[in-house]
């Protein structure tokens, strides 16, 4: 895919996150999208960011798949999966201006574009877009959490797996069974039963 097309997709993603567009935000989104840079390709198991690090500000996943996890002691929680065509960020860096509490790992070969914090704030200053973009990013994050929480508390194990596979068709090959159980908040034995009954695995 050509860099121009990718930057158009990034701009579309930026604008879709805003509630009510304005001329200044249209212009800012073009400048922001145009300033994204490709990162060296990530291989399976490579980290985009690690706990404690200050990652770049915004990312766009051109292809591949990533998982964001949070570890405390022996427990690791799967916060979310990132699919291609998604604009995403490390919340600790973007919202709290601190090192990451989570880590993001590539599940397959992944092509990622990034925008630095300096560039974001430079453009933010030039266009006077105020808190519009930051508020928009926080609303997108809130929407994602609502939908993930709904899946985890409302759906039974069978529907939870089916829903996850609908969203991420390659899930069974991307995650280990342990990771998948954690992502779906199921015990290993329940996941084993659901996979065997529904998918013959």
């Amino acid at each position, binding site marked *: 895919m050509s860099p121009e097309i990718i930057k158009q997709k990034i701009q579309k993603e930026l604008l879709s996150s805003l*509630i009510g567009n304005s001329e200044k935000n249209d212009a800012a989104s073009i400048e922001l999208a145009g300033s994204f840079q490709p990162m060296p390709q990530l291989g399976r198991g490579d980290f985009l960011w690690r706990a404690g690090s200050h990652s770049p500000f915004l990312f766009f996943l051109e292809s591949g798949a990533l998982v964001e996890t949070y570890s405390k002691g022996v427990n690791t929680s799967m916060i979310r999966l990132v699919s291609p065509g998604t604009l995403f960020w490390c919340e600790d860096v973007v919202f709290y201006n601190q090192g990451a509490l989570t880590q993001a790992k590539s599940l397959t070969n992944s092509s990622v574009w990034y925008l630095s914090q300096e560039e974001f704030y430079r453009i933010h200053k030039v266009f006077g877009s105020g808190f519009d973009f930051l508020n928009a990013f926080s609303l997108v994050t809130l929407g994602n959490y609502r939908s993930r929480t709904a899946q985890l508390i*409302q759906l039974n194990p069978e529907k939870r797996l089916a829903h996850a596979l609908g969203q991420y068709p390659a899930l069974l090959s991307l995650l280990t069974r342990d990771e998948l159980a954690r992502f779906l908040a199921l015990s290993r034995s329940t996941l084993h039963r659901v996979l065997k009954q529904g998918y013959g695995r």
Partner: protein
Amino acid sequence: MVDNIERDSMDQADSRKILLECFQQSFGVDFELNRLWLERLVEAYDGPHLLNPGDLLWDMGDTRNDYFFVLDGLVSEFWVNDCGESFIYAFIGPKEFCVNESHMLFKAPSKSRLQVIQPTWVMVLRQEKESEFRNGNTAWEQLSYEVGKRILEKRRERIRWLSGPKGEHLRQVITKYPGLLNHATKEQIARYLGVSRATAYRLFTNLARK
């Protein structure tokens, strides 16, 4: 952990002071720059109002966009799925903000019901007053962002708890909202954890043994 003292009365001046302190914590170093504006905003909140268990702050289908600040007590946000089963998305306790997120995110009627679990004192910024503060105001944008960040932290914490052992999730939520032990039913706790009532009983038994 928050205190679990149930109050018989709440003074308006004290309530406004608590709200202003919360804004101060959210704004950090920018607080003094915006102090006058924030004081005016605090005065626009009405209350404190005492709500009783079962009272609703908003119901499914509501289109109002009032902003609530819980001074003391406990409120739960219920969801009802397509099969008519209800679940608890979140608890909102002392010094926490809540807003109709369906309206805020999608400009859609509410898909949730906000119901009081224990006697609760709230302050409310009515949507009619909100527009005086919102329109094109940078301080409003900043405040929305700062308050939104606190809500987001809580939502991420919830995902972390949901993805971990259920017993730990129960322990964490009781530590955070001690009023649950006296005021929430086991069924409500089960709906929050996303487990059956029998599992919730077992988790409580295990917790009591520790």
